């Protein structure tokens, strides 16, 4: 499954202004993998993704894209290889779905190459793949959260990059839409052969969809590898401080984390009537 890494962070020190998030952090994204990064809040997983996507410049170390320093490559060339779905994007007032998805073609366009047949085809395909084709002429600000997220994914797809990074793509979505988005990611990975890197909060989702799992804590990689090997009760305890049992997911056979109860179940099922005095 894992070939040479296409995206490689080497000895990264990541920091915002004065706050250092990670030091000497090294990660490799195997080619053709669906890599998922997990870890507790503020462990540096989104920061790592930003560094890999070159929206955050590391204070030390290098990010290598196909073996070359990503900051030394022309920005547009990188944008044809590596796409990013950030946690938050802004849909301009009144923009339609089709117009927004079309903006994903920017790195393939120029002053005299504004809308090729290829652009048209890819935008239509991206909207079809994410199930937003019938929304094409609707303003994005009228859509539901789940629809909107699919539109942003369609825009990232229209960029046609073999590598796609997704920063918490399921946040703000209800459980059905979370599964829908993750199924879509799995299809992109399996059917289109894209290499995906996603930051996810839900351990169950991570274990179910990832082919390569990276568990982080305090800016360090604690474990990485196939989720069936990585996700153990000890690891969950170490990374999240959560006592749990691991059972087999009856649907997929992947590890399913069942948190331990912290206190015995209360005996009374009915609400108590508090006597008034």
């Amino acid at each position: 499954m894992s070939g040479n890494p296409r995206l490689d962070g080497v000895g990264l020190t990541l920091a915002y202004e004065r706050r250092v998030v990670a030091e000497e952090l090294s990660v490799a994204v195997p080619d053709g993998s669906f890599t998922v990064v997990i870890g507790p809040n503020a462990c540096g997983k989104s920061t790592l993704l930003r560094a890999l996507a070159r929206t955050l410049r590391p204070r030390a170390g290098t990010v290598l894209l196909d073996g070359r320093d990503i900051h030394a490559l022309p920005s547009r060339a990188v944008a044809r290889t590596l796409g990013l779905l950030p946690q938050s994007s802004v849909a301009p007032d009144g923009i339609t779905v089709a117009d927004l998805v079309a903006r994903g073609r920017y790195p393939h366009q120029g002053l005299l190459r504004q809308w090729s047949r290829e652009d048209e085809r890819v935008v239509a395909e991206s909207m079809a793949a994410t199930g937003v084709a019938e929304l094409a002429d609707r303003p994005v600000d009228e859509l539901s959260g789940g629809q909107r997220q699919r539109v942003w994914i369609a825009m990232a797809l229209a960029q046609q990059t073999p590598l796609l990074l997704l920063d918490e793509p399921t946040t703000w979505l209800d459980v059905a839409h979370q599964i829908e988005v993750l199924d879509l990611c799995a299809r992109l990975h399996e059917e289109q052969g894209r290499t995906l890197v996603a930051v996810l909060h839900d351990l169950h989702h991570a274990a179910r969809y990832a082919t390569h799992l990276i568990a982080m804590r305090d800016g360090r990689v604690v474990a990485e590898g196939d989720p069936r090997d990585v996700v153990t009760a000890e690891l969950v305890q170490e990374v999240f401080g959560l006592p749990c049992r691991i059972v087999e997911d009856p649907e997929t056979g992947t590890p399913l984390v069942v948190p331990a109860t912290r206190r015995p179940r209360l005996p009374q099922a009915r609400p108590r009537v508090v006597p008034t005095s």
Partner: protein
Amino acid sequence: MTVLRTAGGRSLRWRPRSLVVVAGTALLAVVLGVLAVGGGDYPMSPADVLRTLTGGGSAAEEFIVGELRLPRLVTALGVGAALALSGAVVQTLLRNPLGSPDMVGITQGAATGGLVVVVLGGSSLALSGAALVGGLGTGLLIRAVAGSRGLAGHRLVLVGIGVMAILTGVNGWLLTRAPLMDAARAVLWLTGSLDGRGWAQAVPLLGVLTVLTPVVLAGGRAMAMVELGDETATALGVPVARVRQVLLGAAVLLASVAAAAAGPVSFVALTASHLARRLTRAPGPNLVASALTGSVLLVAADLVAQRALTGQQLPVGVVTGVLGGTYLVWLLAARRRAGRN
């Protein structure tokens, strides 16, 4: 959307509605321009104006049109376009619908420069120069205080508002220091006026516009990406920091040169791009439509300023505020009635 493709793999794409708006505002600017040149103490018919402009007028007509009225019109067109472009750039790059050079203190900085000359006494050329220096200096000051990473979003806005507050205070103090006659002249200049503007104001303005308009237009597509957020724009291959640096610099220069030519005319920079967007209904910075809308707005305002009250000319800045503001409020109200917001 209309697409034109050539055999060589080249393609152009535009919105028919945007094209209609651009053509319409351009036509309107020409019509208003002919009316503006024809009006005044020596009235001329549109036919006379066109005949004189094409070189067929009498010596008197040549003088009135070529030396008095045409430079005023050109200044109005240029100031409108410069302010509108500046406003469109600031709004887009700060992702703030209220963003404009007025809001971040550039206009007030230009006013301070001009007022210093009024208080110390100086020619109108010195006044223009000082306004330009004041605007540019304020831009550099904001950049230094906000820091190179602070050019995005709220930090720049807050620093700009702070600088604006300080400069407004300084401007008030300068006005109280000026002798009464000079203070009256200063207030007129502060409102924004096109009275007595000649080629000395129009030519430098046109020069700056000739250089900066292509720069801003070339950045239009990148700006449309920055609208989506810095991270998304970077992911799409836009060098966001450099785009901001260059285009905000251009916006400061455009606003300063406009203030140097006509004084700190209010509200055009803020309104023009909103009007253009309402008209084209297109997302993105709508740069060409905004620039033309700004030109139309300023020429129309100057026409009203010259004709509204008989025997008395209003400063154009009074009218841009009233006209632009009313139109914007009306448009928003009309949209609300139509069930949109």
